[in-house]
């Protein structure tokens, strides 16, 4: 059995889930392997958690959405937080960190504005923060798929 099949709706897993009283439609939880791999992969690379579980369609749409929002934010000259001086900066930085490698690469490449100087730059900053938050939601969804909490 491939890694990705361990929590998928194979006949074997369906039978195991039915006997353990799992939620109808949900896949049975398996503790084999590293269950946090889709969560971490999904956080680092948008959609990667779903790709690991062979959910190609969902993964592609999630990756396109997160990437689209992040790139749109950068094109709007949004700010990528690098340090935190007050509570709003801390919250923004936490949101940005949700982007995983996108955040690290954008910091290394000096992408994004240091100071918001145009009106659209303020929106762009929000787009980048929300992209990170959406990416975290996607990664948690991949984890739920992996553990069988969701089908």
């Amino acid at each position, binding site marked *: 059995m491939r890694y990705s099949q361990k929590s998928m709706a194979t006949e074997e897993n369906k039978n195991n889930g039915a006997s353990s009283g799992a939620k109808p*439609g949900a896949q049975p939880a398996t503790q084999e392997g590293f269950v946090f791999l889709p969560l971490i992969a999904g956080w680092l690379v948008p959609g990667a958690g779903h790709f690991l579980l062979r959910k190609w369609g*969902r993964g592609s*749409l*999630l990756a*396109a*959405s*997160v990437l*689209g*929002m992040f790139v*749109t934010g950068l094109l*709007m000259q949004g700010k990528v937080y690098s340090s935190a001086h007050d509570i709003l900066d801390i919250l923004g930085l936490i949101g940005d960190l949700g982007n995983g490698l996108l955040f690290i690469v954008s910091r290394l490449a000096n992408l994004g504005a240091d100071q918001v100087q145009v009106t*659209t730059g303020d*929106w762009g900053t929000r*787009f980048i923060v*929300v*992209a990170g938050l*959406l990416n975290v*939601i*996607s990664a*948690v*969804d991949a984890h739920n798929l992996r553990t069988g909490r*969701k*089908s």
Partner: protein
Amino acid sequence: MTHFTAVVLFALFASTVFGITQRETPRQMIRYGIYCFVLFVGSAILLSWVMYFIAR
């Protein structure tokens, strides 16, 4: 980029993620995604008109 374009883009991306992550079947995902999109854009238009009349 206009305000409205930004709203539509934001709604499109957020609705896609909400639809996929908050529902189980593809049919439910599409319905919930469209529902979220309409709420995002609709509430933005409604609030814009409210602010327009407040500012007058």
